[in-house]
């Protein structure tokens, strides 16, 4: 009887030791290095979710690349939604700080992207339905990203990760290219 109790105590001790090693390391890895997310919504068609609601793409999100807030025009990035802090949105970077960009929409005007901000847009310009909302309860090791909504300028501090590859479904395995649609390149300023 005493022998089995000693065995259980040893087991419990080594379980706790293992738990306090693996959980912080795993959480730190998913927060700082890379994680995986399923994309919902259609505003990044045709790059992401071309099948609509039938199949959602799963993308690899690389946190490490954006740890110094370095992004290029054309990158697909995920960020915390400025309208709903509990939700992540996934969009393409169109312009960096200091660029002058022509906004597409009902007001066709020129905007200069302020310091510390970037201009992001979905690839599907015709689409304008509201974002679905996900609560933190739907995340479990991976985060769900939404691709609904319109164009907006966002603070760089909201940057979450750089989406580099599509991992699922297998027929859509690919590296996401950082291409800027030619009609969305920034307007050259007079000084250049």
């Amino acid at each position, binding site marked *: 009887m005493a022998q089995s109790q000693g065995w259980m105590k040893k087991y419990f001790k080594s379980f706790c030791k293992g738990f306090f090693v693996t959980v912080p390391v795993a959480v730190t890895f998913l927060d700082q290095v890379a994680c995986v997310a399923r994309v919902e919504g259609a505003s990044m068609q045709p790059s992401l979710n071309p099948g609509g609601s039938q199949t959602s793409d799963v993308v690899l999100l690389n946190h490490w690349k954006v740890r110094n807030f370095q992004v290029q025009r054309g990158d697909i990035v995920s960020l915390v939604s400025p309208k709903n*802090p509990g939700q992540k949105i996934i969009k393409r970077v169109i312009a960096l700080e200091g660029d002058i960009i022509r906004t597409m929409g009902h007001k066709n005007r020129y905007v200069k992207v302020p310091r510390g901000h970037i201009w992001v847009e979905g690839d599907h310009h015709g689409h304008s339905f509201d974002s679905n909302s996900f609560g933190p309860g739907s995340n479990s090791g991976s985060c769900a990203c939404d691709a609904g909504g319109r164009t907006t300028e966002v603070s760089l501090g909201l940057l979450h990760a750089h989406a580099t590859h599509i991992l699922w479904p297998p027929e859509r395995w690919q590296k996401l290219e950082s291409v800027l649609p030619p009609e969305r390149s920034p307007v050259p300023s007079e000084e250049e």
Partner: protein
Amino acid sequence: MLRGALGKTFRLAGYTIQYGCIAHCAFEYVGGVVMCSGPSMEPTIQNSDIVFAENLSRHFHGIQRGDIVIAKSPSDPKSNICKRVIGLEGDKVLTTSPSDFFKSHSYVPTGHVWLEGDNLQNSTDSRFYGPIPYGLIRGRIFFKIWPLSDFGFLRDSPNGHRFSDN
């Protein structure tokens, strides 16, 4: 002998990674000690005061009017700002000084907060750069550790009239 040294190095690296990750999780999800600099929160927080910040409230959307928060600066994501929350989304905030004759109000948009420093004369805050997204908030400051003469929970805002009337 080389194998012994290599084994020791790996073990050291393993412990460093393990404790580094525990520290990261603690700072990110629980809280930590922060040193504040700048005059914009005087007299509540002076330059070089050390305070205790907790990061649980922002995950549970527990940030309220009157809380002092640390947030990423909207114009420089690598630096942090420390201000008081004056208005939450939907609140009506005064965007001009109360001594101005023509007062202008605006409403805080969804998902944003309006921040102001306690030292209104010497603070660059939402009156300058507008409301900031809630997602930029890193944590809530609630306790001062240093200097010991001011040890304890932080006072309420000395500028009570800035809060929106119900």
